[in-house]
């Protein structure tokens, strides 16, 4: 590589570098600063220590995000697989349909689920109406404000992020490799478990990362669909920064964020470890 090449690259990446510096590096620095200082500004480990109190919240956040991720994976893989088997034009339409919800605002979509799941919402009203026809009085299911509703919200909102990377990897698998497997005696099941599944691991890994990370840190979904019954770690952090339910405390909020960030980094590290073998196959997102 010669000098002018490097210079050109520097100029091309400058806007992004500046952006990253201002909106990523500096905020992380601020989080670190607040996490390790008291409200008077002196160094302290008290914020970090106080987080032990929220271990239950961390656990439930991770648990719900994991459940949502697993459901997404179980739904997305068969979907992505069958889309990848369709004719080219049909594939485009299906991918468009998968992405269609993402064109609408995230908040509006989640509000819509509220009106569907409420005690007097669409589902309950409909069931009540049906049962009243046969003369039965029904009180309705409790769906909103449960952990189930939160997981539903996560799955609904993040499903496309699981479908797309898996679909992309599946379409990239060389047809002749599948033919080679059949040629060597592999029936449909063997072809899938021995060739297609292992070759789509990079897509699964990026899908899991792209669903788990936003799910574990969400606060909107739990607030709207959990109705304050279940606090996720995102809600607690929001409360500390905005003071919705008590005093504003940037320091504890920052400490909570920091720990969450570390947890996410650790889980991504584990993921990438799985990905290493498959990395050379290309793949990944889009």
């Amino acid at each position, binding site marked *: 590589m010669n000098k002018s090449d490097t210079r050109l690259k520097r100029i091309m990446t400058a806007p992004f570098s500046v952006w990253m510096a201002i909106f990523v590096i500096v905020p992380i620095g601020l989080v670190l600063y607040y996490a390790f200082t008291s409200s008077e500004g002196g160094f302290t480990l008290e914020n970090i220590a106080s987080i032990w109190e929220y271990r239950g919240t961390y656990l439930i956040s991770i648990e719900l995000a994991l459940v949502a991720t697993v459901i997404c994976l179980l739904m997305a893989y068969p979907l992505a697989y069958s889309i990848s088997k369709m004719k080219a034009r049909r594939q485009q339409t299906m991918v468009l349909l998968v992405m269609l919800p993402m064109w609408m605002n995230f908040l509006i979509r989640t509000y819509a689920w509220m009106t569907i799941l409420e005690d007097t919402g669409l589902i309950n009203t409909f069931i009540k109406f049906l049962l009243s026809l046969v003369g039965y009085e029904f009180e309705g299911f409790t769906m909103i404000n449960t952990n189930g509703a939160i997981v539903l919200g996560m799955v609904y909102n993040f499903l496309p992020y699981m479908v797309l990377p898996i679909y992309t990897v599946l379409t990239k698998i*060389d047809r*002749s*490799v599948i*033919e*080679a*497997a*059949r*040629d*060597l*005696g*592999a*029936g449909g099941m*063997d072809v899938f478990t*021995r*060739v297609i599944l*292992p*070759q789509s*691991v990079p897509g699964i890994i990026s899908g899991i990362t792209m669903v788990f990370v936003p799910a574990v840190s969400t606060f909107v979904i739990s607030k709207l669909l959990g109705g304050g019954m279940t606090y996720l770690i995102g809600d607690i952090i929001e409360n500390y920064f905005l003071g919705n339910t008590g005093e504003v405390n940037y320091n504890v909020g920052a400490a909570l964020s920091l720990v969450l960030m570390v947890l996410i980094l650790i889980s991504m590290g584990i993921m990438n470890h799985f990905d290493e*073998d*498959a990395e*050379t*196959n290309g793949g990944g997102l889009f």
Partner: protein
Amino acid sequence: MANNIIDLKNISVSFDGEQILKNMNLRIEDKEFLTLLGPSGCGKTTTLRIIAGFLQPDSGDVIFDGKLINGVPAHKRQVNTIFQRYALFTHLNVFENIAFGLRIRKTPEKEIKTAVSEMLELVNLKGFETRDINSLSGGQQQRVAIARALVVKPRVLLLDEPLGALDLKLRKDMQNELKNIQQRLGITFIYVTHDQEEALSMSDKIVVMNNGEIQQIGTPIDIYNEPVNAFVADFIGESNIVDGIMREDFVVDFSGNTFKCLDKGFGKNEAVDVVVRPEDVDVVPYDEGMLKGTVTSVTFKGVHFEIIVDIGGFKWMIQSTDEQFVGDNIGLYIEPDAIHIMKKSEYSGLYGDFSSYSEEFDELSNADAEEEENE
């Protein structure tokens, strides 16, 4: 006929209304090295895919070892394929790639180990067991593909232009190696290529195809020396193809002269195509020539000179070890056994004149002729 391992009967295939194979009949003998040779789009790969089971013919029967196998899926056939771009499993290492077919068959681990190391030895890749597929060169990947297919002991190995992606030197080496492997294992190889040299040097039998039809089946020597029509004569090697008239048995007129030849059985004064290979023409002094012409181009090819001679407006190609010069008037002498007579065919007049010859153009004009045929 007794030892046919594969019998294709009246096979027809079309895609999107275009007919790829037209009522094809082919018998393949056990343990032979058979090559399907033809330009791209001639139907040779389609034929291979029908035998492999990746493609069902629209009509016709595929018979393997006396049994009809039309509906039998690829994974239940006793044939294996070497794919054009290797199609290796990149998520597995060399050992696991070769072991793949054995694992499917639930072979015991110990036997797998022995079989894989035998195969690695066969293809000269000892010690490569744990190597990553992506770290191998094209030639090495091709060897892994060969080992992977042979380890399951197929009766027939199908090879779809397996050397196309390799450079010339490596290709020559692999040609010898493949031929050796075929002879050592004593199994049938069906080899698809568009490279006539490859076909001539490796095959026991060549099937020349064009536009979904078999043009000629024969040994390399037959195909070269006795092409049945202008297409085969032109596709295999270089040929001067001129219009001639068969006066009687062993006597033919062309280019304004009468020649002795070794062919018979044509009608009296029947119009025919006459083929003369460039290397069979001798250059003699102008006055002694059976044909007389002017040199219009000379190219040095290493072993010989390629000389284009204008004879009455028709340009001949001659290969000679003696240098000639543009503008020279020379005579040509042709032995009777160098003259090959063919019946007129749909390809008459399309090939064999070197008027606007260049190697690149040769390729192009082959393609053009194909398109015309398709229309």
